[in-house]
């Protein structure tokens, strides 16, 4: 277990370093970051000034080293648009995105796990087919269109839910559904497949033969084992959702990290963009690392090989 953990940790650190290099180099995609920061049509003097202040005149390795060193100390740079420290803005916006992601994941799991279980109990039944249809239809809907359609019905036509803001829990209903429904097909399929496999295993037959109540067999014996892969899938999907929140937060005007990312892209706030890509990637790396650890802990086959 320890060797596996160290190996996996080494991989995670290496990936994190690579991601940091990529997000550092990202600002060079525009050609000269000094020109991009100074803004279009600025004078040569201004550009030169920006270059001096941001240190773009140093060798790129030195710049990266300095940036990484600062980042490790929690200093992600300075946003000259917001006239503020990047890290404090990012971490101020992060909790609301996390909350949105958690609500979305909660919605997805509450919908997909029961559906997956029922579908597995009666394969090829009507419920199974309905679940499959939901999965296929759900995967084909663009999330931004789904979000707008929900606004159209629930807010404009029926006046049930508020459109924008984060004032009450009612504000989170539509964004959570819009962000979470995309995950449901994958979770549902995995739950169904896991349950089908477990339900045909010997220990379930034994449990049934002992005369245990069907519900006990289903939840205590079967679901517990079938749910293990769902846990790591959920972790991975949570990471994807944080990345996808940029669309949903923009539509519902939720002041989270995604909205901040979109605003920063609009105003070419390079340090902010860099920091958000880095923070979300690192978060994803940590998430997958812990999911793998949990998986290894629950499944001895992984940690031995």
């Amino acid at each position, binding site marked *: 277990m320890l060797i596996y953990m160290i190996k996996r940790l080494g*991989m995670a650190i290496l*990936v994190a370093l*690579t*991601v940091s290099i990529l997000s550092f180099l990202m600002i060079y995609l525009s050609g000269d970051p000094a020109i991009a920061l100074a803004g279009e049509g600025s004078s040569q003097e201004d550009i030169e000034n920006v270059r001096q202040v941001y240190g773009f005149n140093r060798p790129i390795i030195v710049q990266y080293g300095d940036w990484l060193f600062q980042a490790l100390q929690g200093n992600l740079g300075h946003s000259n648009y917001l006239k503020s420290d990047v890290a404090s803005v990012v971490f101020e916006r992060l909790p609301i995105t996390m909350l949105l992601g958690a609500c979305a994941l909660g919605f997805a799991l509450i919908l997909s796990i029961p559906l997956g279980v029922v579908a597995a109990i009666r394969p090829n039944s009507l419920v199974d087919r309905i679940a499959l249809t939901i999965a296929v239809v759900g995967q084909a809907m663009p999330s931004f269109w789904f979000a*707008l*359609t929900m606004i*159209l019905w629930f807010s404009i036509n029926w006046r049930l839910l508020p459109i924008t803001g984060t004032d009450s829990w009612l504000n989170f209903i539509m964004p959570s559904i819009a962000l979470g429904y995309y995950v449901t097909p994958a979770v549902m399929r995995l739950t169904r497949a896991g349950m089908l496999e477990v339900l045909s295993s010997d220990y379930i037959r034994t449990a049934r033969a002992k005369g245990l109540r069907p519900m006990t067999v289903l939840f205590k014996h079967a679901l517990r084992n079938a749910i293990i892969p769902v846990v790591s899938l959920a972790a991975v999907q949570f990471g994807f959702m944080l990345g996808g929140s940029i669309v949903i937060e923009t539509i519902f005007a939720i002041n989270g990290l995604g909205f901040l990312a979109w605003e920063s892209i609009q105003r070419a706030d390079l340090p902010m963009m860099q920091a958000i890509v880095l923070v*979300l990637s690192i978060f*994803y790396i940590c998430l997958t690392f812990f999911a793998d650890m949990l998986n290894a802990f629950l499944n001895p086959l992984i940690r031995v090989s």
Partner: protein
Amino acid sequence: MADTIKTSDTSVESIEPTPGSLLRKRTFGHAGFMIGATVLGIIFFMAIFAPLISPGDPYDQVLSRKLIPPIWHESAKATWQHPLGTDLLGRDYMTRLFYGARISLLIGFTAMLISGIIGTTLGVLAGYFGGRVDMVVSFIITTRLSMPVVLVALAVVSLVGSSLTMVIWILGLLIWDRFAVVMRSATQQVRNLDFVTSAQALGCSTPRILFAEILPNITNSLIVIATIEMAHAILLEATLSFLGLGVQPPEPSWGLMISEAKGMIFFDAWLITIPGIGLFALVLAINLLGDGIRDVTAPENRN
């Protein structure tokens, strides 16, 4: 007439059903496949013959006829001249829908092609050689997966400037991960089979083994992933265009059309609904087709 064909068919099959006839039977008996193929066919038709079948010009702005509702609206303004109405700038919406299909299909297909070439190369090499090559490829895949696609695509587009070609390249360079993952495991399954070993024993060169022995045997899963990624690319393009950083006006991208109409959601919601249904139908059709191909070519993997 139909009866005689049917009986002759079964009599042939009762002697010896050919693999071809079984495949045909499975294909035409698969509801999802047929629905997907039909819808996709219609959208292809719309895209290819857009100049011939559309009622107007996609860029022609006539402000005097702006925001005409589609014909099913009980409005005096609705006219058969513009069956799906017109947008804020008075452009015929049906025409823009037809031309938008071209953009979605073009971007979806080419981005899928680029990502397919990258992902398949990485996946096959990792699966075939294993060891260090596999480690490096797995590392590249993990790195790619840890960067959020939409965010990175948006940031890169904003930095390098957005154009149709740019969007295609950026999407192609970002969404190869599934190709790599699936092709890697498919190759691992094929690599140790007898026909590969005998090709190696015969002294075939590695490129020959990869192209003539491995690749043909993983084509099934390759096609399935290709459909998934084409749908993925279409959705991503629509998302980028919706956020204003994909296809630029006045091009009629479906995502951009929804974006342009989002301010009119209170009164003219059909402007959002129509291109949305287009996107939904296209992605659904491609997914159904992909699922169908998977079921039809490998019936044993159906569940």
